[in-house]
């Protein structure tokens, strides 16, 4: 098991390296003189030169990249220059993390709770009107990105009917109900797309699994339909569904950007937008690194769960 993890992590190293390169090169994209941009419009020529030296911009590209890489490896991810000057970029990210983490988790939980019964029902009643309605629903859901569902949900449920608070966030420490009341609408807004993708995948793989010989055996054993589907079929249908679930993380991170702004939640997405507007490049760079590593980490975890679902995939 440890060997498996080590092997996978090793495989990710080139990618991680490239990610640092991408994040580094962002700064190269800045048109004009980055030192001037960072120092601000009111900076004097001396201040600009100071900034240049401070950011190491007076050295050539390779040296700068290696310095950057060295910094990362030693755990230093740069300092915020405009949002909260002086504080470490990673600190800001970690401050914002609980919000986004809550949002992501609740969103995925909602997605799974809705999508699994939906997919199972559609698969078991394949071809009937139930299947067609559910499949139609997923098709429409696919087309509802968070930035459409967000405003619509806010308009209907928060502004018109005041069922939920429209903005803000309260941490879990304030109590579960309070925490959930602020999270529910934004998480729901993000989950539509995930419901669609997960639901479809479950339907597809369950249909395939139900045709397998071992399902016939399970029926021949006289097991109830619930048991046949719930125990025998689903475990085998799970793998592609888990893969899709893993892919949702990337999507949800993108979704949080819009949703956190709409619902005024101080999460990582909002941090991303704010730091872009404030020209706080170190924070932007740190965010790129962070989100990429989050995705890579999630993929690793998904790969590890495969071994649980399909014993054939376990090493040795």
């Amino acid at each position, binding site marked *: 098991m440890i060997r498996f993890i080590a092997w996978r992590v090793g495989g990710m190293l080139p*990618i991680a390296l490239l*990610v640092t390169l991408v994040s580094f090169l962002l700064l190269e994209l800045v048109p004009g003189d980055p030192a001037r941009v960072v120092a601000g419009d009111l900076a004097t020529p001396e201040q600009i030169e100071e900034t240049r030296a401070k950011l190491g911009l007076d050295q050539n590209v390779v040296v700068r990249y290696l310095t950057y890489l060295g910094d990362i490896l030693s755990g230093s991810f740069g300092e915020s220059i405009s949002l909260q000057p002086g504080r470490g970029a990673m600190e800001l990210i970690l401050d914002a993390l609980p919000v986004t983490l809550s949002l992501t988790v609740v969103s995925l939980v909602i997605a799974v709770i809705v999508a699994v019964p939906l997919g199972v029902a559609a698969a078991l009643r394949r071809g009937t009107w139930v299947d067609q309605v559910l499949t139609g629903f997923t098709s*429409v859901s696919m087309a509802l*990105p968070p930035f459409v569902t967000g405003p619509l949900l806010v308009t209907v449920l928060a502004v018109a009917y005041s069922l939920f608070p429209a903005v803000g966030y309260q941490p879990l420490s304030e109590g579960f109900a309070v925490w959930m009341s602020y999270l529910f609408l934004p998480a729901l807004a993000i989950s539509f797309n995930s419901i669609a993708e997960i639901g479809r995948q479950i339907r597809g793989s369950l249909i395939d699994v139900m045709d397998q010989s071992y399902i016939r055996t399970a029926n021949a054993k006289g097991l109830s339909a619930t048991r046949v589907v719930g125990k025998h079929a689903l475990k085998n249908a799970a793998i592609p569904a888990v893969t899709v679930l893993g892919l949702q993380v990337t999507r949800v991170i993108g979704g949080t950007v819009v949703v956190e702004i709409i619902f005024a939640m101080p999460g990582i997405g909002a941090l991303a937008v704010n*730091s872009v507007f404030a020209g706080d490049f170190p924070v932007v760079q740190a965010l790129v690194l962070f989100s990429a590593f989050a*995705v890579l980490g999630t*993929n690793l975890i998904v790969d590890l769960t495969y071994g649980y679902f399909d014993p054939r995939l376990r090493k040795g």
Partner: protein
Amino acid sequence: MTATIEAQRAPEAPLPGGRRRSRTARMLLAERRTRVVLAVLIALVLVALIGPLLTPYGTNEQDLLGRLQPPSSEHWLGTDSFGRDILTLVFAGTRLSLFAGCLAVATAVLLGVPAGLLAGYRGGAFGVVSNTVSDTLLSLPPLILALAIVGAYGGGVVPAMLAVGVTLAPRFYRVSRGVAQSVSKNSFIESARSIGCTTGRILGRHVFPNVVAPILVQFSFSFGLAIIAEASLSFLGLGAEPPAVSLGTMARDAFTHIREAAFPIFPPCILIALIVFLFSSLGDGLRDAVVSGGRR
């Protein structure tokens, strides 16, 4: 890396170049659903293009006294916070959104397809490197990368869409590589090589036509994603810049003033959902056609 769900099966044996083309077109359009969706899309595009001729208002005709009016006989969809006619803006916005989508997907195709074909056909060091690049791009959430690029380089639809295109490229890369790999195993490729065809010619004439169908499937799905990305960026204020109007900027405007007038949020949102739905359905229809190989 985690596997892609979209199993790239090649149900029909790949054929050498010429014979492929007409068969592909007929196969893809076999299902009625596909034809219907395609027709609606084309109609939508046409309407958006001739939009300016249909409405008496200009996209920037402001009427500050008549802001945020509900739908009426003068303004079928009402007015926005600057008093502009929303229906006119819808046409303009659709145009821009469609253009943005084209830009992003074109970038993705140009980056992903040639690299994928070459990697699938040749493999080797190039394959390893491009796989790594592709995987790297896949690990970056599209919106975050687009934000970062826009933040560094500056706003506007074009840089944003190029950025989105870069994040979409790996999908096309994977599809092209997969098909190229399976096609390359065929003997007609061997024979082409033995008579001295260059790699370019082989890829262009023999491999590429077999890739067209799956690429079109990806194209449809990616177009929907690109439109969403553009709209999201514009909604955040980082995409289209005034005086340009996109469905995203309309949504932003409407949302900012949501408590004054609820209606304006609906037209852009519904339209985005509609366009994305059409492209998704088109993608589904094309994919079903590819998978069933045209057999009913």
